[in-house]
């Protein structure tokens, strides 16, 4: 009887100090096939937002990483307007484990290992995915999730993004 609160406290302390220590985060992003005579792969950013909607960190940024006749791929990063304004503009790209080339339509997975997230305190967060396409539109999909133990959460876009699935696994 006396021991129970003690055990709970210990558990709570452990959770606070090393929250979700062994948890991996997986975000799967569906890029819909869009019938367009001038289809270009979208720029996509995936990030974690704090409860106050500020950016916690970027998990993935898919963009043209080279320079071509039209310019440098970084010239259009600002078209992911929400990501850019919330903190994308403060990041120096390319960034290890974050930058990647643009992806073809289909399902893509962003896997973030526990070691990269060990400094993320347990709590409620939102995974935000933003896609912006040349000669196309822009869409933001938000998936609220709980960081602390295994869980899943889903949401779906309607134009530039399909299903977005978030999974926290041990």
């Amino acid at each position: 009887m006396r021991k129970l609160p003690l055990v709970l406290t210990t558990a709570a302390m452990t959770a606070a100090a090393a929250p979700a220590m062994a948890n991996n985060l997986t975000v799967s992003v569906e890029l819909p096939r869009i019938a367009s005579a001038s289809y270009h792969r979208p720029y996509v950013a995936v990030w974690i937002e704090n409860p106050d909607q500020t950016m916690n960190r970027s998990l993935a940024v898919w963009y043209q990483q080279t320079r071509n006749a039209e310019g440098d791929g970084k010239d259009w990063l600002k078209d992911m307007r929400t990501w850019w304004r919330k903190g994308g503009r403060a990041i120096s790209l390319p960034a290890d484990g974050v930058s990647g080339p643009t992806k073809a339509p289909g399902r893509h997975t962003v896997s973030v290992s526990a070691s990269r997230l060990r400094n993320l305190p347990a709590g409620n967060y939102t995974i935000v995915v933003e896609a912006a396409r040349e000669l196309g539109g822009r869409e933001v999909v938000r998936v609220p999730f709980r960081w602390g133990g295994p869980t899943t959460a889903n949401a779906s876009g309607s134009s530039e993004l399909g299903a977005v699935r978030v999974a926290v696994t041990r």
Partner: protein
Amino acid sequence: MKKTLALLALTAALAAPMAAQAHRAWIAPTSTVLSGNDAWVGFDAGMSNVVFQPDHAAMRFSDLQIIAPDGSKLEAKNSATGRYRSMFDIELKQEGTYRVANVAQGFMAMYEQGGERKRFRGSEADFATAIPADATNVQASRTFTRTETFVTLGNPNETALAPTGQGLELVPVSHPNDAAEGEASTFKLLLNGQPAANVDVTIAREGQRYRTATEEVATKTAADGTFSVTWAASGLHWIGASVRTDGANGQPGTNASYNGTIEVLP
């Protein structure tokens, strides 16, 4: 007779503010938020009743002050003057915020001579010799007009936004390149470096040509010179304000005006 007098009074009352507010000055950037290592931005500048709609007069660049993110001065490129708009480009090679301003200082006076109302426009130095000896009711004013906008490459900074302490200026509480639809921005007006309290501020959104209502917003600065605006829609927005300070002891008064352009993104 009575009616005529009343009409005359009304006409005069209407004419006074019209004269003061006629033709707004504006600078319209081709974009304000940019990414990459270098970028170009073009600017159109003119004066017209409907802001950003070039249909009256091109802007004369008396003193184009382009301040780079590190505080250094930048030269305009590809300058040209059209009938209704002046234009130039700048090349952004430094990350941060650029302040692009046209600063016009002038001198004007109203006086009466032989019962006739006359106007002088020119330099203050010329005024002393230009004014007739029999001029009466002389009202002289120094004019100081700042017309400006802001653009940012990469991460914004505020070095270029430091006030000069001259005329009416806008200093950020919110960053001018951080305005988003549905959110609020707060700015502060300074007159010669001091907070400009209780000043009328007009905010007009672009595209009035394609709608029937002006959709202008009128507000006033608080005691500390600040004012806030909640952006109802995206687009280029013109912020206008002016302060008249009467002259005393034979000194001319001052007309200080501010015209700023802020882009609001969705």
